[in-house]
């Protein structure tokens, strides 16, 4: 049957059709043949019985009468029927054969014993036993043996015809079947072919064209549905595959390009399976090198065993802790590893993230060292250090602060509110300061604290705010300096200051009153002292006018002397008053042109230079910040001195110059005149001090005193250099103004 299964549908159909046809045909024909044969035999039987009847009719009488010849005669008549091979008649009583007939005399045929009436086909012949009756009287039994060859031949012919018919029909059926099978097989073959194509090309976009609504049509419909399902599946699968591919790419990218150092090693063998770019970059190994290494090769000698033992036992996600790796160049790094179990290319592996914490470790170490250092500074500082949390509670203090507050132990201060150490009246200020601290302001201020022994300690506090990483205020830190002694000293100073101030006020009042007195004095000098002088000279003049001629020479000389003395006194009084006025006059300070002051002074001295040969050496002068009129008077005094004391020189040389340094301008007047003895230089600038006789050089001794007074009021200095008969140089300085 299997072979049948494997043959094509087309052939199957043909075979089925042909088989069906053959079966039908053969069955039909066979039935026909059998019916025909039965019919023929029945007819033959019928004919035989008729013949036997006929023979019997003919032979009845002879039989009855025992006419053997007659009977034989009758039997011989049977020769007309060639098919009757043998015939005999049995005697009615004796069952003996009465007469015989043989178509072929040479036959060896033996008649069977008498039987009841029947017609039976035997091999190749039909035998009939038929009782011959005459008037209801048994006259004997006739036996006929009739050849059935005709029937056989007819059967044979019929078979032949049938075979030919079958063959012809088969050919026809084959042809028809070959054609008709296409109706069924074509759509199926088409489907098969298409399926083959689809399965070969994996192209599910094809749809079959439905031929009809029969089973094939439904099949097509189902197939189309199936195809669309497949297409959908394929699309879904493609999409999924694409996604998987993308995600693989992503993951690969994530691995390769991950800035974190990643490695994958096989769990059982600790062989390195993959590392990413960051690893390569960080460790310096090439990819090929690292993939030929084991995980343990990365570790330092004394960690190899430990990591090997540990790595094999890891399951799931682990923080593996701190280890030390060696880079290709031998550099040792401290790392932190976290790893996770993965399946990598079918192998049980672990992926590890490596974090190089070498720098952090170093920084931590440095921080630790710096903390130790600062702790030491804090502990040994000469200033108290006091940190508070944002509620004002003490968090950290050093030994010095504890000492300042008069406690023995740090623990007696820690945790306490800073206000516990303060006086009630200082609290409003403290709150203000704390608010400043919250605003992030740092400041330095004085604060009184209450010591453990109840005494007050004055401190200078440098307070700053402490901010956390997010710039949020978390507390304050203060540097506390004990300034109690200084404070006491300050209070002492304040007291002294106020005393001093009172004394200054007192003195000022005294000075003012003295000044007033001086003013009154100089006023009365200017008024009252001059009046008598004027009277003296007035009356002297009147006397001269009226009585001069009556006087003798001596008298005239006395008159002359009185006149000169009174004149000299007048000059003295004027100079003294000028001097006194210059000392009291209000200064009008301004940026003044020194060159102009000298020019003006020289103009005022024109009278004195008349008829003199004076060589002037004059350099340009810097401007000064001074009272113009006063300084001009200084120049007048100095220059008139120079002119006066060079009077006896044939050629007077007077140099006017200046020397400047950072703090002051120095001016000088140098002459080649009478000069002076340096031993008396100190006296030069005193009031009424003169180094020359009135006869040599007239004067009151006020000029230089006036110069000194003016320069002193400008906060400058005056001095002189000289040598008798060689000349003198008079200097004065005016400070440069700074910051004005």
């Amino acid at each position, binding site marked *: 049957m299997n072979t049948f299964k494997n043959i094509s549908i087309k052939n199957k159909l043909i075979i089925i059709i042909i088989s069906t046809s053959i079966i039908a045909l053969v069955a039909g024909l066979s039935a026909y043949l059998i019916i025909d044969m039965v019919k023929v035999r029945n007819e033959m039987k019928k004919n035989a019985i008729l013949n036997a009847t006929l023979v019997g009719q003919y032979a009845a009488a002879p039989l009855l009468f025992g006419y053997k010849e007659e009977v034989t005669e009758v039997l011989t008549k049977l020769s007309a029927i060639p098919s009757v091979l043998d015939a005999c008649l049995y005697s009615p009583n004796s069952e003996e054969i009465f007469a015989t007939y043989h178509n072929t005399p040479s036959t060896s045929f033996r008649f069977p014993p008498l039987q009841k009436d029947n017609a039976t086909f035997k091999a190749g012949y039909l035998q009939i036993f038929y009782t011959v009756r005459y008037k209801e009287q048994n006259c004997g039994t006739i036996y006929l043996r009739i050849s059935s060859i005709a029937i056989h031949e007819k059967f044979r012919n019929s078979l032949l015809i049938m075979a030919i018919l079958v063959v012809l029909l088969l050919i026809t059926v084959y042809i028809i079947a070959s054609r008709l099978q296409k109706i069924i097989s074509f759509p199926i073959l088409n489907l098969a072919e298409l399926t083959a194509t689809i399965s070969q090309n994996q192209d599910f976009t094809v749809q079959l064209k439905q031929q009809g609504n029969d089973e094939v049509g439904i099949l097509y419909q189902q197939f189309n549905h199936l195809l669309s399902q497949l297409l959908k599946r394929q699309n879904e699968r493609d999409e999924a595959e694409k996604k998987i591919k993308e995600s693989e790419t992503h993951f690969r990218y994530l691995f390769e390009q991950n800035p974190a150092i990643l490695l994958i090693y096989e769990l059982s063998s600790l062989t390195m399976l993959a590392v990413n770019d960051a690893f390569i970059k960080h460790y310096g190994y090439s990819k090929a090198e690292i993939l030929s290494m084991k995980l343990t090769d990365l570790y330092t000698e004394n960690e190899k065993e430990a990591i090997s033992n540990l790595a094999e036992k890891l399951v799931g996600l682990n923080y593996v802790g701190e280890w030390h790796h060696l880079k290709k160049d031998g550099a040792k790094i401290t790392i932190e590893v976290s790893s996770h179990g993965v399946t990598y290319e079918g192998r049980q592996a672990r992926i590890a993230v490596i974090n190089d914490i070498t720098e952090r470790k170093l920084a931590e170490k440095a921080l630790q060292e710096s903390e130790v250092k600062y702790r030491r500074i804090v502990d040994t500082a000469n200033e108290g250090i006091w940190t508070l949390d944002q509620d004002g509670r003490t968090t950290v203090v050093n030994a010095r602060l504890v000492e300042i507050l008069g406690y023995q132990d740090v623990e007696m201060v820690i945790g306490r509110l800073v206000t516990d150490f303060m006086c009630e009246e200082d609290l409003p200020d403290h709150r203000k300061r704390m608010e400043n601290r919250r605003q992030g302001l740092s400041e330095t201020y004085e604060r009184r604290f209450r010591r453990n022994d109840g005494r007050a300690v004055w401190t200078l506090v440098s307070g700053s705010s402490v901010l956390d990483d997010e710039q949020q205020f978390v507390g304050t830190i203060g540097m506390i300096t004990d300034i109690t002694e200084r404070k006491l000293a300050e209070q002492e100073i304040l007291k002294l200051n106020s005393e001093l101030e009172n004394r200054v006020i007192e003195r000022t009042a005294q000075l003012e009153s003295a000044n007033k007195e001086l003013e009154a004095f100089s006023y009365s000098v200017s008024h009252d002292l001059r009046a008598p002088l*004027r009277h003296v000279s*007035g*009356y*002297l*003049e*009147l006397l001269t006018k009226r009585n001069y001629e009556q006087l003798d020479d001596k008298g005239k000389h006395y008159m002359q002397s009185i006149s000169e003395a009174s*004149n000299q006194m007048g000059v003295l009084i004027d100079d003294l008053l000028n001097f006194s006025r210059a000392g009291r006059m209000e200064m009008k300070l301004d940026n003044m042109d020194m060159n102009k002051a000298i020019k003006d002074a020289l103009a005022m001295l024109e009278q004195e230079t008349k008829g003199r040969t004076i060589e002037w050496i004059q350099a340009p002068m810097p401007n000064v910040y001074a009272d113009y009129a006063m300084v001009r008077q200084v120049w007048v005094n100095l220059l008139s001195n120079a002119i006066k004391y060079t009077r006896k020189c044939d050629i007077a040389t007077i140099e006017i110059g200046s020397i400047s340094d950072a703090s002051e301008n120095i001016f000088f007047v140098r002459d080649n005149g009478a000069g002076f003895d340096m031993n008396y230089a100190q006296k030069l600038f005193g009031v009424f001090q003169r180094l020359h006789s009135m006869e040599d050089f007239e004067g009151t001794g006020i000029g230089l005193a006036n110069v000194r007074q003016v320069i002193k009021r400008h906060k400058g200095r005056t001095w002189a250099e000289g040598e008798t008969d060689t000349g003198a140089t008079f200097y004065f300085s005016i400070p440069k103004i700074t910051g004005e």
Partner: protein
Amino acid sequence: MIELKKILLAEDNPKDVELTLEALEDSLLANRVEVVKDGVETLEYLRCEGKYADREPGLPSVLLLDIKMPRKDGIEVLREIRSDPKLKFLPVVMLTSSREDKDLLNSYYLGVNAYVVKPVNFNGFIDAVKQLGIFWGLVNVLPPEINQPNEH
């Protein structure tokens, strides 16, 4: 006929008075000089009060006023003159020994017409007084109010 007006000299020191008169002698002005000895007398004279109640009415052509005088000094006299409607146009010349800024400023602030420091030198003094006398006694033209009472 217009009578020449007087020159009023306010001076407490008789020597100064003498010397001043001496100086004015040459200009023939001395006989026109009326002398008062202090500030109070000066104002009494000008206002025809006290011992001057019976004097001939009329203001002088000029008042030569010393500053330092007993009872009422020259500055106070000047201030009263300038605040008195009847006297305020009277020419006043300070004739004083004082060269003090304070006196100068006060005088000019109060509207003095001239300020002369008496020179110590007598010739200078003579010259100064002479010129004062001539200028104020003869040259200077007075405002009508002061002129009027002297007219007959």
